[in-house]
């Protein structure tokens, strides 16, 4: 008898590839983004099948949820700010097309060859990690790797987020002058009920990360979803005077992470070498602060512009009229 789970895996794999093709070929950009979101959910399901629930969580929350919202916001901007004459796309010369095809083919073949040649299912770092789990301070291997064994990677990752928000604030300046969308009374009741519930779920994910799939990035992304909803429905409107608090929140995670990493060197240890008896406390402290930073940063990346009062636009910012 054929194992039904193999059929499921095959169907899921075909669906993932088909959706990738579809989101690249659909004419309508809105449909392409919807298809991309579905593609993200399907890849997360596939990663669950590969027993990577942490990555599935991160992909669903950050790679699909937040990215989908960012793409939509940009599509909305591109569609509302209309251009008088959209330029005709230039024809691509035949030689360039052939060169591109050859480049893509070679790169893919290289990746396939590397995949076929690499030993699969062989021992990797899993045995090393399993041996070192007792000194990590947490019970979940992925959290141990992220926050302890390879903590410098994670610190750099938080720095990348910080750099991104600095860049985005510089690229776009000024207040949002779009009116609030009319979402109606049902939505308001829903928001009252669910926004606190989402905060609870985000905090739960952060807390559960020390012993089960979850952690700072997943929790932070879920909390960022609250920020997204607040911004979308104009329940919260960023003001120039909020910039100070926002800046503190952006830097909080990176600062705390780096400070802890350096302060533990006091007892003759390496940077990031947490003393065993305090390891769990320190990791939870870092994770908590990093979660706040991630949540605020992702929401700010979605909002996109530094809330500066520009002289010519400052008048048209009536936001809170849907409350």
């Amino acid at each position, binding site marked *: 008898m054929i*194992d*039904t*789970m193999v*059929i*499921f895996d095959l*169907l*899921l794999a075909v*669906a993932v590839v088909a*959706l990738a093709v579809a989101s690249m070929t*659909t004419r*309508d950009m*809105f*449909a392409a983004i*919807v*298809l991309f*979101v*579905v593609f993200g*959910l*399907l890849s*997360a*399901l596939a990663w*669950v*099948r590969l*027993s990577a*629930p942490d990555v*599935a*969580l991160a992909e*669903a*929350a950050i790679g*699909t*949820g937040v990215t*989908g*919202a960012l793409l*939509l*916001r940009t*599509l*909305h901007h591109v*569609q*509302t700010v*209309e251009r008088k004459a959209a330029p005709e796309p230039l024809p691509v010369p035949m030689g360039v097309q052939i060169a591109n095809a050859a480049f893509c083919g070679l790169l893919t073949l290289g990746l396939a060859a590397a995949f076929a040649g690499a030993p699969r299912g062989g021992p990797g770092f899993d045995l090393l990690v399993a041996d070192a789990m007792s000194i990590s301070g947490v019970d979940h291997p992925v959290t141990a790797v992220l926050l302890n064994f390879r903590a410098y990677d994670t610190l750099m990752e938080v720095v990348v987020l910080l750099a991104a928000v600095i860049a985005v604030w510089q690229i776009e300046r000024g207040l949002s002058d779009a*009116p609030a*969308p*009319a*979402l109606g009374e049902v939505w308001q009741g829903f928001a009252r009920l*669910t926004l606190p519930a*989402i905060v609870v*779920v985000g905090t*739960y*994910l952060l807390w*559960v990360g020390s012993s*089960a*799939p*979850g952690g700072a990035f*997943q929790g932070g992304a*879920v909390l960022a*979803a609250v920020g*997204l*909803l607040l911004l*979308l*429905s104009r329940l919260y409107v960023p003001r120039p005077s909020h910039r100070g608090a926002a800046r503190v929140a952006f830097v909080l995670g990176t600062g705390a992470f780096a400070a802890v990493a350096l302060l533990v060197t006091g007892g003759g240890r390496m940077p990031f070498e947490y003393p065993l008896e305090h390891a769990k406390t320190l990791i939870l402290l870092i994770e908590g602060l990093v979660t706040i930073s991630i949540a605020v940063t992702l929401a700010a990346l979605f909002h996109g512009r530094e809330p500066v009062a520009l002289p010519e636009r400052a008048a048209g910012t009536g936001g809170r009229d849907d409350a």
Partner: protein
Amino acid sequence: MTSFLGGILVVLLASVLGGLVRVFRGPGAADRLMAAQLFGTAAVAMLLILSQVMAMPALLDVAMVFALLAAVTLVAFVALSARGRPQ
């Protein structure tokens, strides 16, 4: 039991993939969104079943996040397309 649940998973996945035809056909943004919503719910159902098949209770948390995120993206879709195109 695992093999039976696997069969159910195949049926669920095939069914919602069929529903995705709506995303292509449209015609309006609302129709495309609806197919995505059906898909999100089915993904939650598949995760619930998978948590049983793979004996990973942590997948229930993943299902929770899927449910939350599906709702958030949907609201984003509606809010951003509602005041989208000028008349």
